[in-house]
Each structure stands twice: as C-alpha cells, then as structure tokens.
C-alpha cells in the first residue's frame, strides 16, 4: 500500500464509513495515520472527558462534523448533581482555533452557554448544522446569535433542551437572505414565537423538509405555514386546541403535503383534531403522540388503525392493552415502539400490562427497538415475546414498581429476561427491571455477546451478578447500575475490562472509598469520580451510616487525565 500516492490511500479510506474502521487503519503505520487524520471529516466523541479537545482538533484539523456527548445517561433522571460538568465551551473554543471548516456540531447532555453559541456563530464561515439534545445552560439569545450569523444554516435541531426563554426575538434574527433551511426544530422552546416571522421564514425556505413547532403555535399559523411547505416530510405541530373551523383550513393545507411521513407535537390536542389527520395516516412511517395525555384510547386507535405503514410509534400508556392490540393488527411494519407512562406514580394501576406487549410481539415481527413502561410483567409473556421477535436490537422494559415479581407466579423475572437475551442474538441495548436475582446476570453474561449497553436498577443478590456481566459481555461499552447490592468485590473483579468500556456508573450500591481508591491505583488510565450527597441530613447520616460508602461512582477511560472543571462534590481519585 505504501506504493500508492497518498491521494489514492485517502480515496480508499473514504469508503470506510465506520469510525472504528478509520481508527483501525490509522494504527497501521505513520503514513496511514497522517493520511487518515487529515482526511477525517467526522469525529464522534462519546465522552467529552475521554480526550482533550485541543488534542482532538490538532489531530483532525479538517473535521467537518463533530459529535460530543457529555453527562452520563443517568443524568436524564436527576441522578447526576447539577454543575457536575460536561461543558461545551472548551470544545467550541478549541474548534474555533483549529478547525475553520467545521460545518456541523452535535451535542448531547452538555452544558452550552450563550457565549459558546455566540463564538460558534462567528467562528465557522461554512457552518451548516447545529443539533443539541438534552442540553442546558443557554437561552434564546444564544439562538439569536446562531440565526443572525450562520449564513449557510441548514439545520437547527433542538431536542428536549432546557432553554431559558428571553422572548420571541430570536426567530426574527434569521436574515432575509437566509433561504437555506432544511430542518428547524424548536419544539422545546417554552415561550411564544412571532407567527408572522415564522411564516416569513418558512416562505423563504424552499428546501424545508423538517419542521417541529412549539406549543405556542396555533392551528391557524400552522395552516398558513403548511401552504408554503408542500415538500415537508416531517412535521411537529403546535398546539391543537382550537375550534373546529380552524381545522378545516388545516385539513386542506395538510392535503397538499403529499411527502409528509412523520408527525409529532400534538400539544394539548383536543379529540376534535383527530379526524382531520386521517388523510395523512396512510403514508405515515413515524408518529409521536407521547406528549398528548389529552387523547384517550379510542382517539388514539382511530388514528393509529389507519397508519398501516407505520414503522416508529411513540405513545402514552393510556393507549391501554386493547389499543396495543389495534396497533398489532394494523401496523405490520412496526420497527420501534415506545410506550411512556402518563402517570409517574409508582403505585398506580395497570393500563398497560404484559398482554399489550405480547400482542405487539405477535402482530409486529419486525419489531427491533422497544421502550415499554408498565406496571406488571410475567415470565411467560417475556418468553413469548422473545420467540416472536428475535430481532430485537434495543429492549428496554421498565416495570414501574422496583423489584416487582412476576405478576402471576410471584417469581423473579430471571427466566423472562433470560429468554430475551438468549433468543435475540443481535441485542445491543438492554434495560432490565422487576424482581431479579443473580440468575438473570448469568444469562446476560452467557448470551449477551453483542450487548453494548446495559442498565440495571434494584436487581441482583450478590457480587456474582455484576461479575457475570463483566466477564461475559465481550462488547460491553456502557454499564449503568443503581441501587443494587454490588460491592468492591464486583468493582475490582475485572479491572482490565474498564479499559475496553466507555464508562461505568454505580449509584446506591455498596462500593466504598477504599475500593474506588484501589481501582484508581490499579488503572491510571481511568478517571474514578465519586460523588457523595452533601445535604443537611448528611450530618446525621455520618454517625450511623457507613461514612466510607460511596453514593455515586462514575468511572471512564480517558487519555486526558483528571479533569480540572470538576465541582467540589466530585472527587477524582
């Protein structure tokens, strides 16, 4: 290969789509390393503290798409204290100095400040796409900066961020010369937007394919917008609470959108709106009704039974088992299903049970991705599901009451989950719940050979449980555990494993400071972060609880050493 000119080698590398493949070829020799790094266009950083931003931009100066993820997954559920870290600033600063060609930035679970967005907006003349998912720290002023200065902006996608609202001005900051928008998602913006500014922006964006509005946008405004976007493929509505006359206008506007394949929003949707959506249903491949507690089982099923091409469905559990049976008989192409709880109280009553899941599994054999919140489950149901759907890639089951056993036999759910890992040979992500002993971990370790991410809560009897997973799951990248009886023995049972993983999270377990110190000493390429709750009652706790017990532990491999932005409550060993 060294006889080829570098341009040829670079061309060959351009056929390698996976980051892992490019990482591998860069290890072959110096020449390949150089060719690869200078031609790398997309870099994915799964943990922002795994590598120093300066180092990364020096190695890949010509990167065009940068993806960075910050806080651990359990931060979504308030298990990571605020001010833990995950700052976007250093990444944007470093890129601004070294990567002039940056076009796309994607960030998840990071703290992004307005000043970071301002720097971003001014630093990259070819900037095209900003995607922020579950981020916080910025306001609509930062968005105004992006709108004002990114002349070639194609994509502004804000998913479930916590954004401070400083008024509707930001949307009006898109200059009249901005006509390049392809995707605009501001569903998570809490405040109002100027309907006129929105309509004008849409009118001058002929390439718009994806538009997700926020709750403040009325049916009337939506109708006016849709007249301008006949090529729209993905729509997130505003609120659907108006009187019926508005829906007639909406209906005729929707009829023009022949390319519409995906629908979401439905904020505060009144049942009156449902029939007006019918003409769209036949073509839909994606439908998200999971923010709409105002539609009941019968409204939902009337809509969904017409969505015969549906591949992705997100709903609330008010759909009930009966509704899921309708889904099973109507949506034969279903690949992804998410059923969210409408009532967050743990001791509620069962609207969605194992029966709904079994119905889905027998009606939808292509199902590969599941997130299912329910109040009860049985081993028999899970065994049936596993047989019906051996193609699961993602299987996340959350039984709302911790440690709840099989609803009929009162046994642990080891057998059921065991069947899932045994039958679904391609399973990459698994979340388990309910009453579970070490037995389920034996099966996970034995059969979960493709498993990359495992989430454990209130499960297991002893250290053996965690050891089965650590020793058996060859491809494990992320392990997150809460409130399970695993101690230092399990933590230290296979320390070399952590080098092959992105991260480990353990909270509410039985690891101690001593155990963590041993880990940190044995494995210098890991950051071992411990966090203990410092609240008023902790003074009382220390006398009687175990003071060396670690509340929260986050371990990750890194080439960057201990980070210097950690708050007081984080101790890095």
């Amino acid at each position, binding site marked *: 290969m060294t006889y080829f000119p570098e341009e040829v080698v670079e061309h060959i590398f351009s056929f390698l789509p996976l980051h892992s493949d490019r990482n591998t070829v860069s290890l072959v020799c110096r020449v390949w390393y150089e060719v690869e790094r200078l031609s790398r266009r997309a870099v994915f950083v799964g943990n922002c503290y795994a590598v120093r931003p300066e180092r990364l931009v020096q190695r890949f100066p010509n990167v065009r798409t940068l993806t960075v993820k910050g806080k651990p997954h359990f931060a*979504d559920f*308030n298990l990571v204290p605020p001010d833990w870290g995950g700052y976007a600033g250093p990444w944007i600063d470093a890129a601004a100095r070294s990567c002039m060609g940056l076009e796309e930035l994607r960030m998840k679970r990071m703290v992004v400040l307005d000043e970071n967005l301002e720097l971003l907006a001014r630093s990259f003349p070819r900037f095209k796409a900003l995607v922020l998912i579950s981020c916080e720290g910025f306001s609509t002023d930062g968005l105004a900066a992006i709108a004002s200065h990114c002349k070639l902006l194609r994509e502004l996608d804000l998913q479930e*961020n916590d954004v401070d609202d400083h008024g509707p001005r930001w949307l009006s900051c898109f200059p009249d010369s901005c006509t390049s928008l392809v995707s605009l998602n501001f569903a*998570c913006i809490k*405040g109002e937007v100027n309907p006129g500014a929105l309509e004008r922006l849409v009118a001058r964006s002929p390439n718009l394919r994806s538009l997700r509005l926020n709750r403040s946008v009325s049916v009337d405004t939506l109708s006016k917008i849709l007249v301008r976007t006949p090529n729209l493929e993905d729509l997130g509505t505003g609120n659907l609470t108006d009187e019926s006359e508005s829906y007639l206008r909406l209906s005729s506007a929707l009829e023009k959108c022949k390319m519409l394949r995906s629908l979401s929003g439905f904020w505060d949707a009144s049942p009156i709106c449902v029939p007006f959506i019918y003409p769209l249903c036949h073509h839909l491949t994606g439908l998200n009704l999971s923010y709409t507690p105002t539609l009941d089982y019968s409204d939902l099923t009337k809509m969904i039974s017409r969505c015969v091409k549906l591949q992705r469905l997100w709903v609330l559990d008010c759909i009930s088992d009966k509704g899921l049976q309708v889904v099973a008989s109507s949506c034969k192409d279903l690949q992804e299903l998410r059923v969210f709880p409408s009532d*967050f*109280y743990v001791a509620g009553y069962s609207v969605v049970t194992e029966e709904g899941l079994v119905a889905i599994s027998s009606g939808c054999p292509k199902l590969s991705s599941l997130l299912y919140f329910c109040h009860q489950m049985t081993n028999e149901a899970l065994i049936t599901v596993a047989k019906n759907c051996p193609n699961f890639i993602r299987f996340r089951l959350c039984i709302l009451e911790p440690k709840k056993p099989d609803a009929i036999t009162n046994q642990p759910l080891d057998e059921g989950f065991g069947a899932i890992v045994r039958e679904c040979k391609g399973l990459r992500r698994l979340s388990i719940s309910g009453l579970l002993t070490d037995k389920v971990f034996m099966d996970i370790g034995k059969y979960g050979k493709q498993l990359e991410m495992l989430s454990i809560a209130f499960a297991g009897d002893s250290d053996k449980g965690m050891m089965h997973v650590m020793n058996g799951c060859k491809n494990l990248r992320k392990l997150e555990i809460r409130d399970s009886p695993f101690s230092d023995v399990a933590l230290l049972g296979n320390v070399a494993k952590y080098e092959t993983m992105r991260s480990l999270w353990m909270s509410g377990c039985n690891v101690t400071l001593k155990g963590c110190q041993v880990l940190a000493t044995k494995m210098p390429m890991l950051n071992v972060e411990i966090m203990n709750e410092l609240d*008023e009652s902790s003074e009382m706790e220390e006398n009687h609880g175990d003071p060396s017990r670690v509340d929260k532990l986050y371990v990750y491999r890194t080439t960057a050493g201990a980070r210097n932005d950690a708050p007081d409550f984080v101790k890095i060993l």
Partner: protein
Amino acid sequence: METVVGDLMATELRLGLPGTVDDMKATPPSTPRGKKRTTAADPVDDSAAAADEATKQRDAEAAPPAAKAPVVGWPPVRSYRKSCFQSSSSKPRSKPATKEEAAPISSTAAAPSPAANATAGGSFVKVSMDGAPYLRKVDLRMYKGYRELREALEAMFVSSNNGANLSEFAVTYEDKDGDLMLVGDVPFEMFTSTCKKLRIMKRSEATGLGSARQ
C-alpha cells in the same frame, strides 16, 4: 433517646394484635438510612418496637417495597417529559398558559436549573411527597407563616396530583434531633430554625406518626 415512634405506637387504638403493624412499607432501597432503621429498636417500648422491627423485616423480605416513598430518579423518565406534563395538566389554551407556565416549567424541569438549587444561607429544605416521583426544595425564609407555606406546598405538589387537596395530607417535618414532627405545633420562627426536611404524607399513614420513615 426516647422516640416518638414507640410512644405513639404503644398508645394507638387499632384492630389487630398488639405489636403488629398493618400497612408497613419497607424502606425504599435507594436510601439506606442506618439511623432510621435502628430508631424503632430503641428501648422505649421493647415489645411494640421489637415486633415492629420484626414485621418490617418480614415485610421487606416477603414483599417488594410498595415504594410509595419517592425514589429519586425513578421511574426513569426524562425531566423534560415530566415538565411538559406538569404544564399540560393545567389549562389547554396555550396562549394565556404559556406565560404562567414559563416560570414553573423552568423551575420544575430538571435539576440543572441553577436557580432552583441556589442554597443561599442554607435555609432551603427538601420537600418530599408520598407518591410524587421527585423531591422539591423550598426556602423557609420566604414565608411569613404556616399559611403561606401551606399555600406554596399546595401550589408545588397538589396541582400535579390530579386535583387532590392538601387537606388529605399531613405535612410533617424532620427536626434537628431527627424526629418526625407535625407541622404547626410550635411558633413559625422556631419551626424554621429547627426544620431540616419536610415530608407530605397521606393522612392515613400519619395516624401512627412514627410509622413513617424516611
């Protein structure tokens, strides 16, 4: 140390054998409080307390925790989703609602919101409510008296509780000694200086005041 637990339990009128407790909830596993577990075994009223402890252990082994006490971060639902629901449970009309809800949303949405966690002077105390998925914090200095505090708690919790009334609940607090007290007995000033934590519990559970644990 004498505890409220043993005293009240011993003098309570109830059906059932002395020493047995119905409706015992085992400890939520995520909060192992060494101190609280030994409270019931303090030698105040040996027979009641010991049987109490035995019942608790039996319940803990036999049945999974009923988990009515809030477990932090459970169920695993994103704060964004939870905050969307809190605003949708009030008026359907978004235009008038948005402005009112803008404030509560930003304070109820995830932990990240810095304002909600500013602990100036340490007068912020945690407030938990039976059945609610996550806790809140209030600054006791903000209220002039018990009525204002009650109103604030009602606004914070009850609106998301499907229209239930705060009168169905007993507001209790944990004082400096770790005892669980009913709010309202002492002058408000004294209360704010000794209160460490607030807990809103169902009245049915509050009959034997000590049966509540953390």
